[in-house]
């Protein structure tokens, strides 16, 4: 069964609350794993970070002593 979601993100009309939660995951698929990435000392950026860990960690739990930070010390 096809259940199209109204256009979410990038300027579309606001979605109902339930769909807004789904749309957030779609947004993060793009903002955390898409977009141009530049590295180097010209920018502060999370570009070097393992984005899978940022993605899941931010959404599932907080970092604590049992769950090490995904960030490398630069």
């Amino acid at each position: 069964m096809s259940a199209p979601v109204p256009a979410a993100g990038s300027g579309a009309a606001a979605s109902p609350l339930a769909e807004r939660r789904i749309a957030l995951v779609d947004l993060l698929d793009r903002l955390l794993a898409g977009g141009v990435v530049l590295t180097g000392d010209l920018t502060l950026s999370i570009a070097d970070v393992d984005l899978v860990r940022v993605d899941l960690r931010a959404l599932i739990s907080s970092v604590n002593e049992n769950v090490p930070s995904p960030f490398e010390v630069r």
Partner: protein
Amino acid sequence: MNSTTDLRYVYAVTRPFDGLPPEGARGISGQPPRLVRHGDLVAVVDAVPAADFEEGPLKARLEDLDWLAGTARAHDAVVAALATVTCPVPLRLATVCRDDSGVRRLLEEGGERFERALDRLDGRMEWGVKVYAEEPAPPAEPASPRPSAGAGQARGSGRDYLRRRMEARRSREADWGRADALSRRLHAELSAQAEAAALHRPQDAKLSGVAGVNVLNAAYLVDRTRGQEFADLVHGYAEEGVQVRLTGPWVPYSFAGIGAEDEPPAGAATEPGDGTQTAVRP
């Protein structure tokens, strides 16, 4: 706002365009973004407090779902507003420079990549397509046998229980099989119709709130003029036990990192459902 301690959050890069950033493009700071030009490129930036966006505090913020959500939405709002007046090449979330000269260095260093991305993305939008195998309805449970039931009846209900379990499992596997087969057909057809295709990791049901297993999570780069045709194609895929969801149009985040010379041909993405990501590289 103190310009000596503010950093520069960079949303996107564009070519020079007429007029101001469109109304409604208020970003993270609540103010309309500023344009920093260097040569033939423009960075769209916002002044953000160092207290929040220096590396240390930024890492903590990224662990906070509410902050992450608010920042991502503000970033996308700016990018979407830019798309109404120019072709924005979006940057990944949280690209921050120390000051305007740092922004100009970003444009200088990334110049060729931005130029390639502008050529690639101009006049195109991104559509997201996800396929789910729906959770089958639990099988109807008959009334449990009364305590005074004889031994024969008890053995029968045990067999019934096992049979129901096996039927439920077969039903679930059949649904996954159908969703997988539909995903492969759909991805092949959409990849042929689009200019490029990219696969994202399947979404976790706990995070998306969608009941059902996400079997395909794909993005397609499509010329603006063909968007409706593309959407109609997706809506034509329907099957019992399988859910197909379309999102978009998006500014093409999933294709911003691709230059013409390292883009895979349409349809060459890896198999759907194996969890890898293709066609999106730093």
